[in-house]
């Protein structure tokens, strides 16, 4: 009995180490940003910074759950685009805005349901299926709207995309991120559903035998992912006052990069929402600081890649070095 306990605590310790590391990176990038540009900590800039990662954050929340359960959803950015296009079309059909948004959210959930059904019913790998639906949903976005853009949304709604809360620097869409973050953190870390995701990610067969309905759980996961991607599509459309079929193209990789940098294992079973939230903030801060410092967007791409890589590579190399040292010490002791 002692062994699994100690194994659990090592896993937990590793997590804490990773999160502590993320906090240090965050502080360094905040200080660095302040040094690079005095504008960095101004209210206007903070507001921009937070607004800019709204969509990525909204999608990263359910993606964390999906990856913890050892699945992946590559179709999210296409669901975002299709939702944006659908929103434009429905608005032009003369439907009232609240109804438009409701239909878009339902459609996103159905897109997720389709992913989930194909994956669960036929036992197919989600990577393959969602590459297919990535093309399918993006295609539907173009079918709906072609290469048109619809921009005449009511001002009261587009204001939501730009305004800040009362007199603070917090952008309105950020409320959604905060609420979403709370819901998904509780869901993952404090409910039986969340625990079952870790179990499924670690060993689906064992999870099935321990009484978890793996199929139903996965189905729910993909539905959540679709719904949140649709929500991100609504926010994106309002923020830029533009419904277009190509909105959010390529976001899926940014989202996955953020989740993995947060310490979630691509093989499932490991990771925490706190890590992902920290990772989202770090990426947002870094991008913003580098933009203010006039660093080109190319460099930002390189930084994103390097962060993602180092997040997995460095711990692995440290573990390797430790193992080698222990071996050496053992050999000496003998």
């Amino acid at each position, binding site marked *: 009995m002692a062994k699994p306990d100690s194994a659990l605590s090592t896993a937990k310790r590793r997590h804490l180490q990773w999160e502590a590391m993320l906090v240090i990176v965050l502080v360094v990038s905040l200080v660095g940003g302040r040094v690079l540009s005095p504008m960095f900590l101004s209210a206007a800039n903070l507001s921009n910074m937070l607004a800019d990662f709204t969509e990525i954050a909204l999608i990263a929340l359910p993606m964390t759950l999906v990856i913890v359960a050892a699945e992946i959803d*590559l179709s999210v950015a296409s669901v975002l685009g299709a939702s944006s296009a659908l929103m434009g079309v429905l608005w032009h059909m003369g439907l009232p805005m609240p109804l438009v948004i409701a239909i878009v959210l339902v459609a996103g959930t159905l897109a997720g349901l389709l992913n989930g059904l*194909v994956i669960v019913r*036929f*036992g*197919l*790998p989600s*990577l*393959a*299926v969602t*590459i*297919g*639906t*990535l*093309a*399918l*949903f*993006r*295609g*539907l976005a*173009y*079918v709906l709207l*072609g*290469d048109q853009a619809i921009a005449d949304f009511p001002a009261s709604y587009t204001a939501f995309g730009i305004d800040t809360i009362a007199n603070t620097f917090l952008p309105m869409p950020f409320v959604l991120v905060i609420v979403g973050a709370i819901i998904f953190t509780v869901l993952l870390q404090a409910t039986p559903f969340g625990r079952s995701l870790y179990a499924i990610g670690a060993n689906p067969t064992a999870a099935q035998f321990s009484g978890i309905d793996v199929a139903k759980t996965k189905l729910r996961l993909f539905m959540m992912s679709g719904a949140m991607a649709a929500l991100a599509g609504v926010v994106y459309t309002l923020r830029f006052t533009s419904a277009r*079929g190509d909105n959010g193209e*390529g976001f899926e*990789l940014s989202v*996955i*990069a953020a989740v*993995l940098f947060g310490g979630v294992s*691509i*093989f499932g079973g490991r990771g925490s929402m706190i890590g992902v939230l920290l990772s989202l903030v770090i990426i947002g801060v870094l991008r913003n600081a580098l933009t203010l410092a006039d660093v*080109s*967007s*190319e*460099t*930002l*791409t*390189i*930084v*994103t*890649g*390097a962060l*993602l*890589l180092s997040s*997995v*590579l460095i711990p*692995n*190399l440290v573990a*390797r070095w430790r193992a080698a040292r222990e071996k050496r010490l053992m050999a000496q002791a003998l």
Partner: protein
Amino acid sequence: MHAGETKRDSIAASIAKSRELTLFAVLLVLVGATAAVKPDFLNLQNLRDVLLNVSIIGLLTAGMTIVMLMRHIDLSVASIGGVSAYAVGSLFVMFPHMPVVVAMFAGVGFGLAIGAVNGALVTFGRVPSLVATLSTLYIVRGADYAWVHGGQINATSLPDAFATIATGSLLGVPNLVLIALVVLIALSMYLKQYRGGREHYAIGSNPEAARLAGIRVDRRVMIGFLLSGAIAGLAGVLWLARFGTVDASTAKGIELQVVAAAVVGSVAITGGVGTVAGATLGALVLGVINIALVVLRVSPFWQQAIQGALIVAAITLDTLLARSVARRMMRKRDHG
């Protein structure tokens, strides 16, 4: 023992073959149906276009197949191809009289270098290949943008000899297609007949068993990423020859198309199953669908949706087929 094993092998081989035959039949039906509606579909220009388009994607798909066989993935191929195309283009700007062969080797060299980084990350660094190659996708593309800085290479900077890769032909077959064909056949033979090639399958079927059987898994994985990188580098050179104009965004995003073609071509994303012939047929099917939709005057906006639906259908059918065959084999073994 021996007889049973060879029998099972031959059954497995015939399934693999029948999957390719199925794809081939799908291809014929596609061509036939399109030609029935639009007889002028079957002209030489369309055939040429399909072959030229599919050659480059087909090469990348074959490289991806080797990596996917070992349960890995290489998302960086589009970035490698893009940077290789631009790098070789710049070499032509600097040395206008560079021989074409040198250009090809240069492209392959760039690809090998990045492939080596991918391989080292996956084998030595123990980074999951999805993460490693997603990172190099970003880093290489970012470096490409930083280097190119809004510039582009034009066809006017390229020597005529180089352009003949795409424009010239031998017995009516474009040179570019011939080059791709030679590489595809070589890869196919490597995977089918050589010990090293078979090891890719063994690793994908059961990595632990492969290791216990004495296969040097890390070395083989490294070779897989080197091959995939080298092919991506070559694909970049061919891209440059075909389109003449390249900039920093060349080939951006085609990695998912390549994975899709492999999956349609019955290469299992879970490793151990797939052939170069299947992968090439997968690329060909997707390429023909694209041209057919243009010929049938389907709105271009429908094309991606149809392609996506077909990919999902192909994966589903392929898996269901494979499973029913496996079940039948199990029954046969238990009762027969």
